[in-house]
């Protein structure tokens, strides 16, 4: 078990290091000069004041020292939780802007990921033992996995929001309300949350159902199943064993799928103008706010790594082979 965790933690550590390095390197290696673009956006025509502004920004963003020192400073600032200043929301710091948006994204992601995982696995396991169900679950599952996240979101907003008028199509809560711990506000929040949640839930559902179906069928053809059937074990018991074995790849699949779902959440939020990280990212891109953009990327990477680690812990709890240091969980 120790070896398993050491390997995983090493990988996560390296991933974090590389993500931070990418974050540091991209703006400095890419063609174009963000500060120059910012100056041109402010339309400073006087060369003297332009020069003064330039050195002010260079100083503010720490661009006036050698590259290796910038890199060290970057790491130093990172560990103090300082991700720089947002240009889009100028005086506020990147971390505070991101932390404001984070609860919305988490409220969308966590329920949709977990619910679609549970429901999808259940459906897939049922489809594996029922021909009729199989013939409906499989095509619908492939359809859902092929749908682009934002298109499903657009369709849901169009049908549920515009045509039926049941749900609001934009924002995290009505502008008429102020955030307050009241019942009306809470209901309003849930109403705005529902459609983005539904679209994320539906897109992920198909993949889990198909994966589970294939895994259960595979397990039902394995040697231990034949052996148990030869011994005369009841069908229910055999299926339960198959299901439990098929769960393991699905748990590691959950961790691997996370990056994709986070990407889906970003575009889904963009459709509904839901005030999470996705809309923030959109704003950052439109305003060329690179510090904010990088801060968001860093938060996403940290979140994905944490969740991956959590999945590893669950995997060890569920699969005794990893605990005993036998083969099993692939590192």
């Amino acid at each position: 078990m120790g070896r398993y965790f050491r390997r995983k933690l090493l990988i996560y550590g390296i991933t974090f290091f590389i993500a931070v390095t990418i974050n540091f390197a991209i703006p400095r290696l890419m063609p174009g000069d963000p500060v120059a673009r910012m100056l041109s956006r402010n339309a400073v025509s006087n060369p003297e004041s332009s020069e003064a502004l330039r050195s002010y920004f260079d100083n503010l963003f720490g661009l006036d020292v050698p590259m290796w020192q910038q890199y060290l400073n970057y790491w130093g600032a990172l560990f103090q939780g300082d991700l720089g200043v947002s240009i889009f929301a100028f005086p506020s710091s990147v971390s505070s802007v991101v932390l404001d948006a984070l609860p919305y994204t988490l409220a969308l992601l966590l329920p949709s990921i977990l619910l679609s995982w549970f429901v999808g696995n259940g459906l897939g396991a049922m489809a594996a033992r029922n021909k009729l169900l199989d013939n409906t679950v499989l095509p619908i599952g492939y359809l859902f996995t092929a749908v682009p996240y934002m298109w499903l979101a657009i369709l849901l907003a169009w049908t549920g929001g515009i045509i039926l008028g049941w749900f609001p199509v934009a924002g995290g809560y009505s502008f008429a309300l102020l955030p307050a711990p009241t019942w009306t506000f809470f209901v309003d929040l849930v109403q705005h949350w529902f459609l983005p949640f539904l679209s994320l839930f539906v897109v992920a559902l198909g993949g889990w159902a198909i994966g589970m179906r294939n895994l259960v069928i595979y397990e039902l053809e394995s040697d231990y199943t034949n052996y148990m059937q030869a011994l005369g074990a009841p069908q229910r018991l055999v299926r339960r064993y198959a299901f439990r074995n098929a769960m393991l790849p699905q748990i590691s699949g959950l961790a691997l799928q996370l990056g994709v779902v986070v990407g889906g959440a970003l575009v889904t939020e963009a459709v509904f103008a839901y005030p999470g990280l996705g809309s923030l990212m959109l704003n950052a891109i439109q305003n060329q706010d690179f510090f904010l953009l990088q801060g968001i990327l860093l938060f996403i990477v940290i979140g994905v790594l944490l969740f991956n680690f959590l999945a590893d812990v669950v995997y060890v709890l569920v699969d005794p082979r990893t605990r005993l240091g036998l083969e099993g969980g692939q590192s």
Partner: protein
Amino acid sequence: MTTSVTPDADVIGKRSEHLYFALRNPKVVIGLTIVIGLLLLGVIGPFFLNNDPNEYIGPKSEGPSGDFWLGTTYFGQDVFSQFVHGLRSSYLVGGLGAVIAFAIGLSVGFTAGYRGGIVDELLNMLTNVVLVLPALAVLIVISSYLEVRGVVSQGIIIGLFSWPWVARAVRAQSFTLRNRDYVDLAKLTGKRAPQIIIKEIMPNMASYLLMSVILLFGGAILFAAMLDFIGLGPTNAVSLGTMMQQSMAWSALHLGLWWWFVPPGVAITAIVGSLYITNVGLDEVFNPKLREM
């Protein structure tokens, strides 16, 4: 399938046997028909619609009609013309992204799986790192720094970040194949490693490789559509994703211009879904256990 004709195994080789079953598998036939049909529309269509897809040619916000098959946008652009041009760029991005990701995944996977040892450790580490990175977020950050974005550059960066699972699977497969007798024999005859990999190992997983290219292709199309939708699409071309982005930006939703945002999504879903279904069908073709005869 209810065909009673069985191919004469002595006359017909393995390759044509696969072709025989592929052409009789409804999933493969239907899937490929849709994919190739839309491809032809995207390749040939623009020659007949000899106008710039962004040209303002018609009345504004008009529904589908005989003149404009899919209606016009808020600005009076022909949606069908945009759609056809968008199909073309979607296929281009998908193909390019798939080829690049496949090439990287193949080389990393074979090198790691065939060499083993420290090389494998390092490459496996790299694979796992890229696998954990949230690809779309990284792609968004990278493309937001590119001032001029084209279909080609988009395909390249998508390819650079979607290879890890291919590498992982290829590595696992070559692990099991590299200790076979025929590989040892090839080594004894003095063949070099790349030659052994190409001549001896690759043919044994050809079916798997074909299927992974198909999945990469679909994945790259979806990735490109999401990037385009965020507003990081090609600056010089129309794509299905930018159509959706434009329609949302000019509130087609509230104006009820459904013909603007429905067709691009239908096309992407049809392409990617057909690719997945083709893949399932091909699985049945290559794996005789799954054939329903």
